[in-house]
């Protein structure tokens, strides 16, 4: 009986909180822009802002499925390694004579497979947290990338491949269009389909979901495989932008991605959060970086800011909920 009361109460707080959090993100986003405008006169310029999106949107592809994973209450820290592995395999295949489109398809398949393996291990060994499983596969995937390419760089892709990272359709960057399409698709998947509702249900109470006939294992594997696929998409855009690849590419991406998801208001305990928050967070962090980069704030300072942002983003809701919980008990 008591559990039911607590749950319904939480849902009530939840809605109020959501409204606040997304609004807060919008406010922070505006603040960041105002700050940037004051920092540098070169900031407020349509063309440079548009081109700035091209530099930070590559990792945003992973943010979309990571929202699903974190709503499930899991985490995937192997994504950066999957990016590296897909990228390296694509480059290696192309350099050994495989046509580029085939190499790209295989790269996407490899990413999906990596994600699938993560999901399979997590589902088969439920007593292992996703942290430790993806920690191990994170080392393995990057290890394989090193085995394939050692310490060399591979590149010299066909010219059209550069379009992914550098091209425009009309006056809009290609990557921005692709990201918008994916963002809409993922938002629909999360908020408008049974699949999405089930993901929320599993994040709130996985046992109850299983007993209500949700195929929890299949959904979890699908979500992790989807994350692998999107990591491979990131690999395509990133490789295209850089023009070559190395086994140590994309190091630290997992932190950026997790920071954006958490900043977007997705609870680390699972079950709560919305896609729009994460998408807002992507642009917030991206423009913050771009603006601070304009005024030559060192990259290390950005590291500190991002780390603190991540901590603050998880701390602020705890402050509220912590108070609520105390009163309840």
């Amino acid at each position, binding site marked *: 009986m008591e559990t039911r009361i607590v749950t319904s109460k939480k849902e009530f707080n939840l809605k109020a909180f959501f409204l606040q959090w997304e609004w807060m993100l919008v406010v922070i986003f505006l603040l960041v822009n105002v700050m940037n405008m004051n920092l540098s006169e070169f900031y407020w310029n349509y063309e440079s802002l548009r081109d700035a999106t091209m530099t930070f949107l590559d990792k945003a592809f992973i943010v979309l499925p990571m929202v699903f994973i974190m709503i499930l209450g899991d985490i995937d820290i192997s994504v950066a390694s999957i990016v590296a592995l897909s990228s390296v395999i694509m480059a290696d295949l192309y350099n050994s004579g495989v046509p580029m489109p085939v190499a790209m398809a295989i790269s996407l398949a490899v990413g999906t497979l990596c994600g699938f393996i993560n999901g399979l*291990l997590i589902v088969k060994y439920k007593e292992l947290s996703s942290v430790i499983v993806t920690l*191990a596969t994170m080392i393995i995937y990057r290890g394989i990338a090193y*085995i394939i390419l050692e310490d060399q760089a591979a590149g010299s892709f066909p010219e059209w491949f550069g379009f992914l990272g550098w091209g425009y359709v009309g006056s809009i960057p290609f990557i921005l269009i692709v990201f918008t399409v994916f963002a809409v698709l993922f938002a629909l998947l999360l908020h408008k389909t049974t699949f999405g509702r089930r993901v929320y249900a599993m994040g709130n109470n996985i046992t109850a979901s299983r007993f209500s006939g949700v195929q929890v294992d299949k959904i979890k594997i699908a979500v992790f495989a989807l994350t692998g696929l999107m990591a491979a998409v990131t690999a395509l855009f990133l490789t295209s932008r850089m023009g070559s690849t190395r086994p140590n590419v994309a190091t630290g991406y997992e932190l950026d991605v997790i920071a954006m998801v958490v900043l977007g208001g997705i609870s680390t305990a699972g079950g709560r959060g919305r896609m729009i928050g994460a998408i807002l967070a992507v642009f917030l962090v991206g423009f913050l970086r771009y603006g601070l980069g304009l005024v030559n704030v060192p990259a290390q300072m950005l590291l500190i800011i991002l780390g603190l942002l991540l*901590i603050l983003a998880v701390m602020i809701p705890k402050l509220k909920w912590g108070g609520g919980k105390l009163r309840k008990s």
Partner: protein
Amino acid sequence: MADYGSRTKTVSAYIAKFRELGLLGFIVILSLAVQIRNPSFLTWENINDMVTNTAILSILTVGMMLVIVTRGIDLSIGATLALSGMIAALAVGEFPGLHPLLAVLIGTAVGLVCGIVLGFLISRFGILPIIATLGMMNVFRGLTFMVSGGKWVSAHQMPASFKGIATGSIIGINNLIVIAVLIYLFFYYFVNHTRTGRQIYAVGSNPESAKISGINNDRILWLVYTIMGGLSGLAGVLWVSKFASAQGDTAAGYELSVIAACVLGGVSIAGGSGKISGIILGSVLLGILNNALPLINVSPFWQMGIQGSIILVAVLTNAIVKRGVDRNHLMRRSV
């Protein structure tokens, strides 16, 4: 059914009981195999080298075991190590007359502060350890670059007394080994024979019942991250003294090796279990792998993959063994 159950009980209980023995057996077999491929492996010099190189890893492993026992994880230790090593190195660079012991204290103090901050975030705000340590990892790493201005502190800027911390020896045994042994002795006593030590395990195996039985969970959590920070700080000074160089990216990714050593040593990621004897073997095994793979001409580019696979196998083995033990407990309860 009952028959099958009782058989499972014996097997898994057996494995769980003799886990360390199995690990030891594996180490012996591995050493012999390497020795056959390269006879210089089991020479006194190489063994001495190997143990010295493993000392820092094993010091960190103790702290990580305590953290993992409380169901946590600490990804920030590589950064804490770099920060405290850097500050200690800058201090001795500025004041070459500084007593080496004072340098060690400075580094340890920096590490303690890092750990206290982390413990505060985790215990007071209930932030998931992985998120908190991932965030602070970047903060500490960024701070390391900031305090050093992006520059290295290299060997010629350090006085001989400072470098002597890691190269010197007491009665023929390298200082690093002596420090590691002292730490292990202390923590063996701490986790097995003090009230607080036992409380760490209680919090890890069942936080709710620990709280009900009067244990201050927050205090214990805070304590383990503080210990972890302090040990990372100490390890930072030893690291910088040993390699005679402090850089912004010192020990980047080292936390993975430390976690690997814990997992190999049978520390359960689900919390509540882990033994000092286990993590000694885990560190030694990892040390042997790092030392032996180059000796038998395995390409350095394979090392990461091999290390990852070993971690995965160890984690899965732990899970399977624990399944058997749990089923065993359940059976005993239902009888």
